[in-house]
């Protein structure tokens, strides 16, 4: 082919690329409006999140974002926050970090969201924290208890939400030390900041009781080697820092090999409805919640089965109206409680919310715990979420909270009881019951 024709084709291909990109840019209306921050107009605030609707972490967790959306719809029906309705878009990342990177950039650059809210997962969200902080986008209430969100120095725009795994590990360890003194402890944990954070917390309290700690890689479903190794170490107690699917896989192996330790489950992998459903589906109906009966766990929210609690009553009402297709379980409660926190933070940011304004409000400690049974740690130099947990016991397939909520720090500080009573929904001024 002659070079002039070849050049003509090259120019043509380049022009097509340019036109396609320019055309894709049209039709995407940005946030705009009266405020200086993207995603905020006089009547709306647009936020976005990434969540696993498919993939290994989807069972259970896929209920969280729709539940949060239901809570926002309820708030919007009451007139929104300071006259603005909250528009929440969540995108599926399949718990795949590569997809997280692309959907978060799409939310920030294309959908022009005001903030990223409740982005789910430790392995996923760690890949966008640098990007969000470089771009100065509020990264609020990450749906993961990784201690890594609490780094106000290098990530001033990121805030954790749920109790950090390290604090959880410490309080679980403290309970084991006091009630199961001298027993041998085995730990089965996810090999990332989630499981490692929990293990660090446990070691803070019961390093001398741990006889085996075996990690798994999410995605690899054969966990028999880990469980049998813990069994061989003659553990009397098994502590799981696992997502629900791996709680179920671990218990199925334990059952098959006749390993019957006292079970402790991290809050992350303990929801009886979710784990029971997974046990049923993995065993084709042969197993159910009975395999986690009697386990100890912990929580920073009231038990979802405690219908006398005003927050649970409110969440149930919202669930029945806006999210009735999902089961009413711990994941739904989680999503709604996180959504409350955003609504409260937005209210605290004042009549003209800006990205800087909402971060300042959180740094000033202006957000009350609402449904939480323990306070937030939010302060200028502390971006951790809830500061403690209360021990729970799984009885008849339901979580019953026992004793008192305990609070501590993610380092080696003391563990102390927290005695302030929980706020009612009406107290918060954010949402009417």
């Amino acid at each position, binding site marked *: 082919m002659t070079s002039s024709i070849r050049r003509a084709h090259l120019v043509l291909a380049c022009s097509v690329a340019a036109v396609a990109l320019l055309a894709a840019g049209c039709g995407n209306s940005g946030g705009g409006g009266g405020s200086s921050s993207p995603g905020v107009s006089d009547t709306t605030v647009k936020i976005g999140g990434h969540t696993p609707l498919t993939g290994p972490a989807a069972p259970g967790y896929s209920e969280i974002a729709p539940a949060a959306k239901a809570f926002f719809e309820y708030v919007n029906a009451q007139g929104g926050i300071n006259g603005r309705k909250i528009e929440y878009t969540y995108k599926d990342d399949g718990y*795949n970090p*590569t997809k997280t*990177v692309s959907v978060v950039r799409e939310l920030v650059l294309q959908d022009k969201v005001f903030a990223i809210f409740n982005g789910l997962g430790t392995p996923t969200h760690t890949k966008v924290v640098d990007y969000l902080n470089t*771009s100065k986008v509020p990264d609020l209430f990450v749906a993961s208890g990784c201690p890594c969100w609490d780094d106000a120095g290098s990530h001033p725009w990121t805030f954790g939400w749920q109790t950090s795994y390290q604090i959880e590990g410490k309080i679980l360890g403290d309970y084991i030390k006091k009630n199961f003194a001298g027993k041998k402890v085995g730990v089965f944990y996810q090999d990332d900041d989630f499981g490692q954070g929990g293990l660090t917390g446990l070691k803070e309290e019961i390093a001398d009781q741990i006889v085996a700690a075996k990690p798994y890689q999410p995605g690899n479903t054969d966990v028999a080697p880990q469980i049998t190794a813990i069994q061989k170490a003659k553990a009397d107690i098994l502590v799981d820092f696992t997502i629900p699917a791996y709680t179920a896989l671990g218990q199925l192996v334990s059952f098959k090999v006749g390993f019957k330790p006292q079970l402790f489950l991290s809050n992350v992998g303990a929801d009886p409805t979710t784990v029971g459903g997974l046990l049923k589906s993995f065993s084709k109906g042969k197993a159910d919640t009975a395999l986690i009966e009697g386990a100890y766990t912990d929580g920073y929210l009231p038990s979802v089965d405690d219908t006398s609690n005003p927050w649970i009553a409110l969440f149930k009402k919202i669930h029945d109206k806006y999210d009735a297709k999902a089961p009413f379980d711990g994941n739904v409660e989680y999503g709604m409680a996180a959504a409350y926190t955003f609504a409260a933070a937005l209210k605290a940011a004042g009549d003209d919310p800006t990205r800087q304004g909402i971060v300042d409000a959180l740094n000033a400690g202006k957000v009350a715990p609402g449904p939480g049974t323990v306070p937030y740690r939010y302060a200028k130099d502390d971006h951790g979420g809830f500061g403690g947990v209360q021990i729970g016991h799984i009885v008849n397939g339901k979580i019953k909270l026992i004793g008192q909520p305990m609070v501590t720090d993610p380092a080696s500080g003391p563990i102390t009881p927290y005695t302030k009573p929980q706020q009612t929904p009406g107290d918060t001024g954010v949402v009417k019951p």
Partner: protein
Amino acid sequence: MTLLRNLAVTLALALGLLIVSLALTPFNNLRLASIAYYFVALAGLTMLTGLNGQISLGHGALMAVGAYTVAILVGRDGWALVPALVAATVVTALVGSLLGVVAARLRGPYLAGATLAFAVGLPGLADRYPHAFGGENGLIIPPPTPPSGLGSAFPLERWEAWIACVAALIAFLALSNLQHSRVGRVMRAVRDDEVAAQLSGLDVARIQIVAFVVSAACAGLAGGTLAVVTQLAAPGAFTLALSLSLLTGIVLGGLGSLTGALWGAIVLVMLPVWSDDIANHFSLSNDVQSNLPLALYGIVLMGVIVAAPEGIQGALRRLGRRLGLRPSMSHKEEGA
């Protein structure tokens, strides 16, 4: 002469890309960056398959080699971007030479099988050695900072687009010269008839290894650039699906042609965008929406194979001939 002409074309393209990138929104600059790094990978693969007649189902894994090289050098050892990208190119070329030695002994389905095993097996190393490669989590690369001379409001995405476009232009300049050099002609000779090439005194195996090295170097540069743009090297980005879509890309664009590789890159990046637009327009459910791009790939691929077996570039060439832009002499053996 060829060198001068190609240099002039490259400079003109650079100017065009600069203007386009200045006009684009940050998000579309990100897409421009994707088109650019896909172009580098496709251009390399089209040299191997279109020009030299060897098939590779393993180019996704070669991109992973480049990406992890950059992630380790920049993210962990604090290297600057340019030396890290050069290193990614060199390291992947070395891996490619090993693969090329195997490839030179294999033909047809056996070569496809060997490279397929490479594509499936290599990302597994990240899980096998989580301390070195971060397991499924992958390795994080800090976002590249635009030079302060460009002003503090200079968007990160435009800077990423520039990095990727420079990589694409370098690959374009190198490959368009190679194509018209002795090496390019020899590669075509081997593709057309190995026996004849051998009888003419050519060392067929050596030429096939050279083709693999060149192609792998491009894949390494593309993978490294991808890692810089997405700020991440993780196994989830380098699945078998990537290797297959690269092959789809060169077939769609037109085998053996650099302009065809550009067409392929445009289709690979823009097709999911268009499919999302369609899904949103008809408010399709999430299940349909997430599978639509695959269905569209299939339809477009079938359409192109039936209507224009030589790809988009081949169809345009035919159209050009029909419009009398050039004498109707058959010249299809030569890549454009």
